[in-house]
């Protein structure tokens, strides 16, 4: 009697486990993969955005020093070449100091400090992107799709000729079911654990990167744009006040160039702002995954995450406009 009950217990436990595995085997994590794919697009554009801090800084002082040297062609060329100087110690120049008392060399040295912050920012960005990519790789359906492997295995077993085809097919089916179910269960557990433990850190880091680009880099561009505006305003003003005939066409031509340069800066500002919005979606999307961590493969989570993936995708063209 005990033996009979024991066998029955074993059978019911096995059936219960099978049912659990059936429920956990149906994992659709492809939405997470799509979300992480789109989110990691920012990694491609970040270096260009970040390195422009230095370039913007040098453009700023160029606008100022062009006026300082009264648009002397030779000295303007020297101003343009400043960023290419490898050794600034002992560099001699006839370019007069700026209104703040600093030489152009001192201004270039200040700008080169941006290269250090750029390096630091790239490391922060890499940490976030590597994490997002790793989440996506673990969520990839082909990782636990053993169809091809098991089909090939079945074919190889058939060649030996020991087993009947119907038995091999049944064996293949069961192996596929059990291996996928078991690994998907483990995979989902790993994903849940990562999302749970790191949601706050992802938010912290993404907020820092968002502030760095969407607030601080944008402010750098705004300050550059101010210097650009005063370059042209001062120049047009000086031209109009020089006495003699004022050629309206000259002013219009200059204005046209001013507008074009302004447009380029404004596009950069738009791109940086779009980058900030992408990071907002990364933060929100990851947090939604955190809130839904008990049901990562569910239809509702899938729809929600695909929504964030789409929002990021929609912002990418604006990001690409200037970079």
């Amino acid at each position, binding site marked *: 009697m005990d033996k009979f009950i024991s066998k029955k217990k074993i059978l019911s436990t096995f059936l219960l486990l099978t049912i659990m595995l059936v429920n956990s085997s149906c994992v659709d994590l492809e939405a997470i993969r799509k979300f992480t794919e789109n989110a990691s697009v920012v990694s491609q554009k970040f270096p260009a955005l970040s390195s422009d801090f230095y370039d913007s800084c040098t453009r700023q002082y160029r606008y100022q020093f062009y006026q300082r040297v009264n648009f002397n062609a030779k000295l303007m060329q020297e101003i343009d070449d400043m960023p290419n100087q490898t050794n600034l110690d002992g560099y001699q120049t006839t370019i007069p100091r700026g209104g703040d008392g*600093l030489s152009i060399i001192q201004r270039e040295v200040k700008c080169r400090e941006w290269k250090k912050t750029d390096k630091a920012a790239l*490391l*922060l960005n890499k940490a976030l992107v590597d994490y997002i990519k790793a989440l996506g*790789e673990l969520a990839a359906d082909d990782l636990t799709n053993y169809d091809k492997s098991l089909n090939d295995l079945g074919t*190889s077993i058939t*060649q030996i*000729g020991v087993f009947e085809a119907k038995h091999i097919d049944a064996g293949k089916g069961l192996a596929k079911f059990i291996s996928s179910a078991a690994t998907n269960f483990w*995979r989902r557990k790993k994903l849940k654990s990562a999302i749970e433990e790191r949601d706050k850190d992802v938010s912290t*880091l993404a907020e820092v990167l968002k502030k760095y680009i969407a607030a601080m880099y944008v402010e750098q561009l705004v300050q550059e744009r101010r210097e650009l505006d005063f370059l042209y305003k001062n120049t047009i003003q000086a031209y109009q006040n020089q006495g003699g005939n004022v050629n309206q066409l000259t002013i219009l031509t200059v204005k046209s160039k001013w507008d074009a340069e302004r447009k380029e800066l404004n596009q950069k500002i738009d791109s940086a702002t779009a980058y900030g919005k992408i990071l907002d979606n990364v933060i929100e999307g990851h947090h939604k995954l955190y809130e839904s961590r008990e049901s990562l493969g569910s239809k509702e989570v899938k729809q929600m995450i695909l929504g964030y993936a789409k929002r990021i995708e929609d912002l990418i063209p604006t990001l690409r406009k200037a970079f």
Partner: protein
Amino acid sequence: MASTKLTSEQAFQLSQAYSQLREAVGNYRLDNWNQLTPAQRQKLEDYEWTLATNASDFLQKSVVLLLTAPETQQAVNNIVATTKDLVEAVKTLQGINKIFGVLTAAFTLGGAIISGNPIAIAQAIEGAIKAIKA
């Protein structure tokens, strides 16, 4: 005693304020061009220059404080550690596929040996070696 250390946010706001002041001084100079002497205009331009440089310095300070904040560094360290775990998890699952590959190659080799076909055997051996090395 209250801390007098500048925060990233404070430095950022100072940067914006100095830059806006620079713009206001510049506009004043241009709007009052004819009322100002050349010397006065030059002095105002020098102030503008100094305000712009100060704005730039504060912005740089703000960025450095942001990127090097202890909470930022801690978040990075935590995320890097978790990423390592995730990468290992992916490798483990890729290993399972590899096991199937090795088993497939082993059975193919078995079938080839039973068939006695030397060409098939040679090909199967090559396949097995590739599967193991993958």
